[in-house]
């Protein structure tokens, strides 16, 4: 039987939706209400499709983390985003769309029949366009330069890894002084590292970002950035 993993923090809604999908599509649906639990589900089972919400305000994580984790553990699982599609999640949605092979995006507010129809078509292997209410948030074509491996170019030496490692700390107020203090680098070195990264950051849609904007980006895309940071720091 086809297996679906539904990652959604609104437990009551998720259970009800899972029940409807089970009834209408004849699939087994597991409900995971926290990004931190995704790993447990992936250890237990393989899924044909993952339906993932993007916003998890109660957790220190986002749907992008869940999607990246699922894709890493099970590359054949079809990824579908289910979201409100508002300004709050627009950057995360765009990152997910560009960095992962997301099959389609379903609007949470679309009629139930429409949502079920989209899921059935994805399971049938069809090319399913993104929900019309969400389409204006997503570029017409994916940026061909941007993929998960591309994050390695943001760490060309150990100094960059130090810088990103500090910026990945969400509580740090990312001023030159604080970053220099936390990394142990000189002010001018921090400035030089930032300048070296600017051309590559443009690929990720950041044009001359401040350190705070780089911190926000690092946090949002940590699932892709952190492995390269850790690799560089462990190899020093």
């Amino acid at each position, binding site marked *: 039987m086809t297996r679906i993993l539904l990652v959604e923090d609104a437990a009551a809604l998720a259970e009800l939706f899972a029940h409807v999908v089970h009834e209408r599509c004849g699939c087994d649906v597991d409900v995971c209400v926290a990004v931190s639990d995704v790993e447990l589900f992936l250890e237990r089972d393989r899924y044909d499709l993952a339906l993932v919400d993007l916003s998890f305000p109660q957790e220190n994580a986002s749907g992008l983390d869940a999607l990246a984790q699922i894709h890493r553990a099970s590359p054949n699982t079809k990824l579908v985003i289910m979201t409100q599609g508002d300004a709050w999640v627009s950057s995360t949605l765009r990152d997910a769309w560009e960095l992962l092979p997301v099959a389609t995006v379903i609007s949470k507010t679309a009629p139930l029949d429409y949502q079920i129809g989209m899921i059935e078509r994805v399971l049938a292997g069809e090319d399913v366009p993104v929900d019309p*209410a969400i389409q204006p*948030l997503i570029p*017409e074509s994916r940026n061909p330069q941007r993929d998960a491996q591309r994050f390695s170019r943001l760490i060309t030496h150990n100094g960059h890894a130090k810088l990103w490692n500090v910026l990945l700390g969400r509580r*740090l107020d990312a001023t030159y002084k604080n970053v220099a203090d*936390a990394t142990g680098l000189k*002010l*001018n070195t921090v400035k030089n590292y930032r300048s070296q990264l600017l051309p590559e950051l443009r690929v990720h849609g950041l044009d*001359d970002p*401040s350190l705070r904007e780089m911190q926000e980006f690092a946090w949002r895309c940590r699932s892709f950035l952190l492995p390269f940071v850790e690799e560089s720091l462990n190899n020093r």
Partner: protein
Amino acid sequence: MIPAPPGYKYPALDLSLALIAGDQVWQAGSAKPTVSERTVAGFKLVSLVMVLIVQWVAFAGRVDVFGEGGMTERDLWLAGIGVASIVAALVLAIRPIALLGGHPGTATNLVISVTWRLGAYLMLIVGTAGLVPRYRFLSTVPLGMVAGSDCLLTLWTLGIAPATRRRVRLFAFSTVHFGVLGALLATAVFDTQHATPRAALGAYCAMWTGVLAAGLTISSLDRLKSFADAQRADERRYIIVAEHTRRAHWLHDDVLSEIRLATLRIDAAGLDSQHIRGELQDLDHRLRLRQLDEIVRGGSPHLYEIIQPQLRRAQSLGIDLYQVPRHDVSQRRVDERTGQLISRAVSVLMSNAINAGAKRIGVAIRQPDDPSLLEITLTDDAGGFELDSISPGRGLATLIRDLAPGTVRRTDAPGGSAMTALIPIPTNAAIHTKERHAQ
């Protein structure tokens, strides 16, 4: 996250170089300068003017330009120094003028900045020392004010607390200062004419006057910023409390009353499940419009946020949305007034198509050649109609009246109409600007 290395101390030379290099070297991002930064930039400009006034008043007192003998070779030298000072001041004024104008600029090279700025400051010092014959120590006050405001801008950009007293104390006990004192002592011991020690003592006093003026400038302006920040934080707290109260009221007055209304209508009419679903869809749409009101009131909504409730409404009614605005256009932000106008236009055009029985609708937004307009086109398959025959008082007639004649057009489309509305948009104002975070 890597913790700061144990016992790590901020390298003094690193900070000195950072300060000499100036704030533009550390510029990161495109955020506009804050009010505090602009104030300090203005203060620096005024101080630069004061430096030049002091120099040229002193020059006028020393040189009789219109005298019988004309200007001597020494006078010409002094005039040359004065002109070089003006050039140095003009070069140093470029950055504060840009900040005052709201231009953050792009980061410059550290070595180049250190070189030219050091040259400009040395020129101002030489100008003051060369042109001011007496009370030189007082003439360094405006110089100290220039340097102080300059340092403060850099400290804020780097995110370093000024801690003026500590830095003055560090300078007083630094090897540089003790070296200067040693040299002063040596001239007093070895120069029996006492001319050199007197001059050196004058320069020493001038140096300290400048350092103290700079310190006072930094601490005063930084304290002013702290007051302004505290006041802004108070205002923010007040706004947050007011906003929470408003939202609580909004939940009661709008959301709950809408739900109550839908419940009463369902109860009163004894509706079946299909009609109840219709009622709930209506309720959903009304609440989304209220949500949009909140977003538009925020001041700079994206175009996609404005059209989304209408797209969702059409979708919930089973209408096939075969075309929606492209990502590059819909990411654009507009001001509150334009947002309301676009929302109204899309709502009217969409309602018109839905009421006429459209089964397929396409929505497009385009920037025409005229940058002061935005073109919204809604195409449907609901058959045609005569735009002139719209009776007054209907939504479309009111929209046409409000948008000015000729700005709403109807053309034939396969099986229906293509309605185009031209919305006036402001072209001069930056809709969404990033304020630099307060340090």
